[in-house]
């Protein structure tokens, strides 16, 4: 019998004195989440395999500190997530991360939405008590879409894993080791990948952001508009971040059917919206020049010409080529229109080419 939540053995533990029953194999972090108990976590991400590298998710079990993201709940376990012992440890680990961080939240694109900044805030670490050298990189990644500011990277590995495990691309990985550990494309060339931006989505800090987002608006004065991506029939759910009536960023939420994943067009291809070359009404060529017309006029014109051609040369003189931007329903109607209204089987789709 396949293991489902129904057949799976349940185990009971207590977290901060609250008892909870979870399926065997559930981690302490997940169990705490189910109880609404917050445990900081910088390398954990629900979409990727467990890494266990940041160590900020430490909790106390029987007097010992264990990483909650990687430790499965055991029957009878007593977990404390907020004892002074683990809180101090956690605070100092965050402190260490901050000791190798640029501290330019003032101009950082991610401010207000940054998981590291949030922890510094929650633990009130103004300046780290541990001090020392910081990573500095001269060369900037020259790719067109993603700003990769690796000084801000906290080496959590989320981007590496989402690219490999979810997107299946493997465009980036760790290079060097120890203090110099660095996420980069092979040979530190410029990123040359699908530019899906899944890595940008999971990056907890401002190390990865959209190039076009910079200085266009952070979290304040942003109106979020949920809509559907116009690019293809998949119809991914997207959220437009609008500031002063201009789309400054596109994101997608993890609770959508596309689970927050987008492709390069949906995530980064929004600049056409305000582009001066964008067509906003139909054009008809008159005397060798295109002139703007109304939709009614344009549709009448097309219907007229279709009729003429069909009468003069027969329906097979016409052919329809549909677009992948249309939904399945659109495409169905399109072929129906060609077969039933025009009367030809000359119908094809751009996805075949």
């Amino acid at each position, binding site marked *: 019998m396949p293991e489902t939540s129904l057949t799976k053995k349940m185990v009971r533990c207590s977290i901060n004195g609250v008892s909870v029953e979870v399926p065997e194999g559930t981690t302490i972090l997940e169990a705490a989440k189910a109880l609404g108990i917050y445990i900081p976590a910088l390398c954990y991400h629900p979409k990727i395999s*467990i*890494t*266990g*590298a*940041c*160590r*900020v998710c*430490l909790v106390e079990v029987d007097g*010992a*500190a264990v*990483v909650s993201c*990687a*430790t*499965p709940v055991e029957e009878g376990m007593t977990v404390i997530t907020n004892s002074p012992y683990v809180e101090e*440890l956690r605070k*100092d*680990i965050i402190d*260490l*991360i901050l*000791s*190798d961080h640029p501290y330019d939240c003032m101009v950082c694109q991610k401010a207000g939405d940054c998981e590291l900044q949030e922890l510094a805030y929650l633990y009130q670490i103004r300046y780290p*008590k*541990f*001090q*020392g*050298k910081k990573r500095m990189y001269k060369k900037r990644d020259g790719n067109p879409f993603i700003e990769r500011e690796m000084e801000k990277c*906290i*080496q959590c*590995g989320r981007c590496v894993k989402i690219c490999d495990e979810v997107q299946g691309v493997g465009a980036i*990985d*760790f290079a*060097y*080791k*120890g*203090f*110099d*550990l660095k996420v980069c494309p092979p040979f530190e060339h410029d990123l040359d990948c699908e530019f899906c931006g899944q890595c940008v989505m999971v990056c907890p800090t401002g190390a990865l952001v959209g190039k076009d987002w910079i200085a266009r608006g952070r979290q304040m004065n942003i109106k979020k508009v949920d809509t559907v991506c116009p690019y293809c029939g998949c119809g991914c759910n997207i959220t437009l971040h609008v500031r002063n009536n201009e789309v400054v960023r596109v994101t997608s939420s993890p609770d959508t059917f596309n689970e927050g994943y987008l492709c390069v067009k949906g995530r980064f291809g929004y600049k056409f919206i305000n582009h001066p070359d964008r067509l906003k009404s139909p054009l008809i060529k008159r005397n060798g020049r295109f002139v703007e017309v109304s939709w009614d006029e344009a549709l009448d014109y097309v219907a007229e010409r279709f009729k003429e051609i069909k009468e003069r040369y027969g329906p097979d003189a016409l052919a329809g080529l549909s677009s992948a931007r249309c939904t399945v329903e659109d495409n169905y109607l399109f072929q129906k229109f060609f077969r039933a209204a025009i009367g030809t089987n000359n119908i094809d789709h751009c996805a075949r080419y």
Partner: protein
Amino acid sequence: MADDQISIRVCLGTSGKASGGEKVLTLFKMHIERLHLDARVGTRCSVKKVGCRGLCSRDVLVDVIINGEHTTYQNVTPSMVERIVKEHLLEGNPVDEWTVKEDYAEFTSRQYKIVLGPCGVIDPENIDDYLKMNGYRALKKALTRMTPEDVIEEVKRSGLRGRGGSGFLTGLKWEICRAQKEKTRYIICNVGEVNRALAEGNPHAIIEGLIIGGYAIGASQGYIFIRERYHLSVERLRNAIAQAQERGFLGENIFGSGFNFNIEFSFGTEAFICGEETALMETIEGKRAMPRLRPPYPAEKGLWGKPTIINNAETFSNIPIIIGKGAVWFSSIGTEHSKGTKVFTLSGKVRNNGLVEVPMGISFRTIVYGIGGGIEEDRRLKAIQVGGPSGGLIPESMIDMGLDYENLLKVGSIIGSGGMVVFDETDCIVSVARFFLEFLQRESCGKCVPCRLGTTRMLELLTKITEGRGSMKDIEALERLSAIMSTASLCGLGRTAPNPVITSLTHFREEYLAHIKEKRCPAGVCKALITYTILEDLCKGCGVCLRRCPAGAITGERKMPHSINQALCVKCGVCFEACKFKAIKKE
């Protein structure tokens, strides 16, 4: 070996080879042939290469055995061979001036060589030599007369603990692995730096142990994980595997038992972290050497996700001995919870540097003053660092302690890789701690925060102190970092990295304080804290120091007292060494 033979053994370990051992061996053969020695002395005369016997500074070491009478020559060079052959072999008079002296006996007599025993006696490239010493008998016994459970039971009863790091009970680890539901299992031999002499001197013992281990846990595939750079070890292990295959000790249906076993090599780079067992498995799988999370433990889910046992090469070398001589015999050596012997690389300020094997429980005093021959120039012992870079520093006051897993753990150290470095009064403890941290910081894989940034910040703090820029807050920071790293790091490297710092802060705090409060390095090592000055009343104005100073920091007229410009001085100490009139003060 029959008594009426002449047998010559030339050390051809890595060091023996580097010292010209091959040439020495060839010359012995040549001279013996040329003089028709066999015929002239009326006996069979054999010359063979053997592995390292530990005292590499005396290489090339050559044993001459005539009618059971042992003579050992040290520092043999090719030009010495002819005389030894002529005077000793032909005329029967050993060349006394070239033989080893009492210190050699000191070095060897207090050791207890059970795994290193055959090294330096048998020809590591000849399986027959190993077979003559009961080689592969333990394998035969295990496969034909014992069940895998019996083998595990015997290893458990022997009390053998891992020789590669944490000292986990080997038999118990095997039992956990054998109990797994998954039937495809792997067994890996971890060959570290300290194991090179074993691999070079007696490779068959490692292989025999590995096969027995495979049988015990139910694995039919073994791996030898070794650094590519250990060329000679690789060559001898490869050769030994081929010979074992030829004789049917490896392959299908070994000893007709139905048990199949094969061994593959997996090569690692120099990185220290490759030796950590989960990083090692990642390496075999072709991934980056970064440790995995535990649990699951390798014995449950290891290589390729299958139950896997990793043991150190020395651990495996003990297996044939345990199966052959029995757990009772084995467990008679050592202390209550630490059985058998342990191999160490003894180095640092002792007179005899080398590879030693000692029974568990032996005192540090015996190791340093007996085997090690005491401290160079009879200086005062300061501390002993045991367990490789992340071991702890044991102060002189504790040298009567017995060496075993429990005692070492109690004093904040580990048996680790089996390194043992001796420091004396001329060593600065802060610099020593800094030296080890520098290594560990460089070798941190960088995966987890406490180790990646903890080692970095620790190194910076220690550097600051050695440069005279330290403050009492830095001590606090070091202690806090130690606590974070040892509890929160992901793998053993980060967890043990603070050991040199913690132990030195415990036992040599006053040295830290001298650096911080008095801006003084008691051992006179930390350059930034040394000042060289010329004592006017002693200076004869000879000008030697002025000429030698590479920085041009010394000025003075001839026959007039000279002086040092502190702003230019680079503290190299050349002047101090050069002055014949002891007119330069170092403080």
